[in-house]
């Protein structure tokens, strides 16, 4: 799909549980023009897993790399963010790697964020391999990919 064809996007961040999938379906029923945007969610490529789940539920979606989100916010292609967090600790939403990136970009572009309890996927035992099967890094070559805390003030 080309950028010019994109209209109102519902951006997902994190891994939706059953309740989250239900919420996405409801949004789609309410607004037929809505498209579901699934970012890659590096380094573990959770986006591919989310895309598989959406396909199983016959929810139409569009995939993008994480660094494309900036232009999509800038061009007002994203109407809302559904943030599937892992935990809520001391007024911080704990989410997957990149959660602060996405929530701050949404806030800076005045896009609303709805926090929803997501699935606590078990992190792969292997440290972040940024190039998957193609290339591996020495441990100190890659910044560890960790869950990120997003202050409630940014979300609400």
């Amino acid at each position, binding site marked *: *799909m*080309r*950028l010019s064809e*994109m209209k109102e996007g519902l951006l997902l961040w994190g891994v939706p549980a059953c309740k989250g999938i239900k919420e996405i379906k409801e949004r789609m029923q309410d607004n037929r023009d809505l498209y579901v945007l*699934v*970012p*890659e*969610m*590096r*380094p573990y*490529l959770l986006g*591919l897993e989310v*895309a598989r789940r959406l*396909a199983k539920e016959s929810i139409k*979606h*569009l*995939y*993008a*790399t*994480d*660094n*494309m*989100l*900036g*232009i999509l*916010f*800038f061009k007002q292609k994203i109407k809302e963010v559904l943030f599937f967090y892992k935990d809520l600790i001391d007024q911080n939403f704990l989410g997957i*790697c*990149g959660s*602060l*990136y*996405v929530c*701050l*970009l949404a806030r*800076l572009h005045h896009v609303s964020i709805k926090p929803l309890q997501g699935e606590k996927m078990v992190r792969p035992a292997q440290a*972040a391999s*940024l*190039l*998957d*099967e*193609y*290339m591996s*890094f020495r441990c*100190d*070559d*890659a*910044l560890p*990919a960790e869950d*990120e805390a997003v202050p409630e003030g940014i979300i609400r």
Partner: protein
Amino acid sequence: MRSPLSLPVRLQGNTISVLDETKLPLEETYIKVNTLDDALQALGQMKTRAFGQVLLFFYTCVLVGEIEEVAASFKKTRPTFDFFTLAHALKGAAKDSSSLKEAAITIIDGIDNKRKVRAQKLAGILPQEGRILTICNVNGELIYLYEALTGQGKTATFFVSETRPYLQGARLTLWELRRAHIPAQVLCDNQAAVVMQKGLINCVVTGSDRSTDKGDIINKIGTYAMARLAHYFTIPFYVLTQFPQTLDIEKIAIEERPPHEVFMWLDGKGPWPEAVYPSFDITPAEFISGWIDISGEVRCA
């Protein structure tokens, strides 16, 4: 020390050798270009880009003895880049040279020297202990920058954003920095906010494919988000520019590459979901702290 990416395209006799960037870092191989069609194929398949496509343009003009046609063909293949300005520069230099080849070599040598001067100027405004976040790849200029910084008694560590989907940061920049024994770490593009929040970096340095006299830039996808976040965290964001022009940046075509390329570096054969792939984005001047031009001019906001 010079990176193989500093001059990734060379003219040897009647053949152009192009460092195949899509094979790096696993293989350092060169492909041969003998015709305009070969050049367009290498360009379209991202075998070379950034400064490499500048070199490829000049040498292809030498090879086919034509300038305008080459510029138009290159522009069609990579619509965001400004090949007509290069064509204009080559035509100007050709007037004072005995051949197109001599003109091209004079320009290329000049640009490479100016890149070293530009690195010196940038080093002059970076912090004493630079912790530099970068995106994509600027063809060896970070090595020039590191040498300039150490020459000025400064230190530097690079934080290299992997730059999906083509991974130019992880495959090219990390590779060239590692070869030069320069401290560097790679990170996911989406970690830009957290490294800023934690104070792991204290400045951002990027290249730019296009820029305007007002200071807006077009660069690799992901640059805008980085600039916007740096602005939020009040971290200086510096851009290397060349040939800023008076134009409306919104009118420049943003290249959108085939969606299947989003998945080309991933393991497996799919099926893949439908995807979008704008390969550049626009960063307005208001989010940029400084511009260091190839002419040597330094502007700070």
